[in-house]
Every structure is written in C-alpha cells, then in structure tokens.
C-alpha cells in the first residue's frame, strides 16, 4: 500500500511539472526579443561551454554521442574541441580555420581541404553565440517561441537547397537569455543533432594559446583556468 502511494505521489509530481511546463507560445513580433538577446550577448567577452553532442539518425536505435567543449572569444575567435570518443580541435577566426587530430601521443595539424566550408560553419556558430542573429537574417527566417521555462529561437534557411540539408535550427535558452541550454539541428529526413550545453562559464580569461592555430594549448590548461570563473 505504501509502495502504491509512493508511485501515485511520483506520478502526481510529474503531472504537476508537466503542467508547469506550458506549451510554447510563438511570439508575434520577435524583433524586440532578438534585440534584447543581442544586447545581453554583446556584453559577453568570452564564453566557455562543455557539451554533449547527440546525433539522432532514424537508422540507429541509439544516438551517436560525443563530448567536447566550445570556446568563443570576441570578436571572432572560436575553438570547438571533441574530447570523447576521439580527440580533435577546430579553430577559427575571420581570416582562417585550422584543425588538429590527436594521434600516437601528439597533435597533428591537418592540411585542410575545403576550408571555406568549415569557415562558414564556424562563423555562423560564433554569430549565434554572440546573439548576432541580425547578421543571419539574410540566410534564415527567424522566429521566437517562449514559455515560463524556455525561450526557443528557430532559424529556417531561406534557400531551398540549404533546407534540403538543414530544415531548421533551434536554439533553446533560459527565458532571460542568461544561458544557452541546447541547440537542435533538424534535417529534412527526420534525423537531427542535439547539442546539450552541460556547463557554461561567461567572461572567462582564456590562457594564451587557446586559439593559436599553430599550436593550441591543451584543454586541461583551459579547464584549470576556467574552473574559478562564474
């Protein structure tokens, strides 16, 4: 009997939580919200994220997961590093991109093919994380939906060919835009990629060499330097 009441209590708690998490309401005019977002993000000098990337393919029963970090420093420097299940570093700024692979105990710099493609992706990631959504309006239709626990900014490519690859991109944030919770990239065939940000540190002083495209400093050094950041 006691066991039964515990189950009822748990179910009730979930029901209450579900009720609190009201359905998302689309915002008729997202412009003021986007401006507010950009204003808040403009004060950010740098940001450090620890993330989990889940690739959901209809074909696979389980998502393909990887772990890593993303670091952004104004005006345009970005470091995307995969730490599990393999080790790889992507570095980019307005001028160039570089990629390193860890193998046989050392980092090896790749002689990148098609760096422009990588550069474009890195640029867009930097713009999104700076709240510079205005710079993306040429390529994307942008809408916003909110409820009491989340604000979702949705970007839909305007170009039909681009939509065939990426049907939409959702950025889920706290309602006051104080933190990014996840990014979901939907593909036209139903597959999607979910990037969950587990830890975020803002206005971090990264150690010299963090974005060095010749010899980036190891992630351990960066983690140590951000461990005391707010």
């Amino acid at each position, binding site marked *: 009997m006691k066991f039964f009441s515990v189950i009822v209590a748990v179910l009730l708690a979930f029901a209450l939580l579900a009720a609190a998490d009201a359905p998302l309401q689309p915002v008729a005019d997202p412009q003021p919200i986007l401006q507010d977002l950009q204003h808040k993000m403009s004060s950010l000098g740098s940001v450090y994220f620890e993330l989990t*990337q889940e*690739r959901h*393919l209809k*074909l*696979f*029963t389980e998502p*393909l997961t990887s772990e890593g970090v993303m670091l952004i420093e104004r005006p345009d420097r970005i470091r995307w590093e995969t730490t599990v*299940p*393999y080790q*790889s570093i*992507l570095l980019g700024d307005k001028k160039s991109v570089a*990629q390193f*692979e860890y*193998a046989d105990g050392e980092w090896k710099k*790749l*002689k*990148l*093919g*098609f760096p422009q493609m*990588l550069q474009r*992706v890195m640029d867009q990631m930097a713009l999104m994380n700076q709240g510079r959504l205005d710079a993306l309006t040429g390529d994307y239709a942008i809408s916003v939906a909110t409820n009491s626990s989340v604000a979702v900014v949705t970007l839909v490519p305007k170009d039909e060919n681009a939509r065939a*690859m990426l049907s939409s991109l959702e950025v889920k944030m706290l309602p006051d835009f104080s933190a990014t919770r996840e990014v979901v*990239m939907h593909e036209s065939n139903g*597959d999607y*990629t979910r990037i969950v940000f587990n830890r975020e540190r803002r206005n971090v002083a990264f150690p010299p060499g963090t974005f060095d495209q010749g010899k980036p400093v190891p992630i351990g050094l960066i983690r140590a330097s951000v461990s005391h950041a707010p």
Partner: protein
Amino acid sequence: MRHNFFIVLFAMLASGCAMQKFIEPPPMAHPSRLFPAEAFVTQRAVLTVHGRQFALNGYIAKSETRGLRLIVAENFGGVLADVLVKPDGEIFVLKVGPPFRRKWVKNFVAADLKAIFEENAKTDGSVRMLDEAHFVIEHSGYELDLRTVEVKSGPQPAEMFEAAGGGEP
C-alpha cells in the same frame, strides 16, 4: 686465443643468420578478425586527397549474415555517404553528400569498407595494419588513415541491412 674469439664470433653470426632465416614474423591477422561477427563500430579517419586532408567519422554496422552498412559523416555530423554492402557483394549507395560522389562511394568507399571488414574480400595490398586499431589504406589517388575508436558488440537491427527502396545497386 685470438683464433678462438673469431670462431665464437663466427658461430654467433652464423646462428644469428640462421635465426633470421627460420624465425618468421607471425602472420598478420586480417583486420576483419579484429571485430566481432555482429557489431557496431565507430572509426575516425583522415582522408588525404592530393595533399588536402578531411577528418571524417565512420559508423559501421556489421553482420555476418546481413552485410555491412557504413555511414560517413563530417565534423559536425552531416552525412557524406551511406552505403550498404550485402553479403553477396552487391553494393547499394543510399546517400551521397558533397564533396563525395556516388561513383566514388561505390568504387572506393565500399571497396575500402570490404577490405577492412570482410575477410573474404579481394586484397590488393592497399591496407596496412599498424596496430589493432589503426589502419592505413593507400591508393594512387588518396590515402585513408583509419582508427577504431569504439566497438559495441551485438546484433544490429535488421533494417540497417535493408536498402529500403533507396539507392542504386
């Protein structure tokens, strides 16, 4: 004494030569024997074409009775190639994304997949196994440096080995 020294030296050299002659390195296992009969394998690869390099992820579903399914993805997860190789050798290219081309996937990607995962595949000496998780495949136009990062043993869903109306054999 000096004479004895040369006899000993000669004997040592002779025995060394004999050792080299009769002790051969153990035969290298075929890469396919390193993987369970039924498995899901994740690999990280660096493809070098005319001096330019591309980092890729490969996800392979392997079944002894149903075949091989490979999905090749770029850094951010975009699928560049999806190919199914049936146990009878028939190849279905189910998806191709730029810069890959259907012909390349059919002629090269599928052949490399078979060279690593299919014990009975024809070998042309292009595969070098540097260790149990590291292979290099060299062809005249490209080189593939391949590292196994994860192996999950166990049968994979049957639908992974079905062309499901897509692709061209």
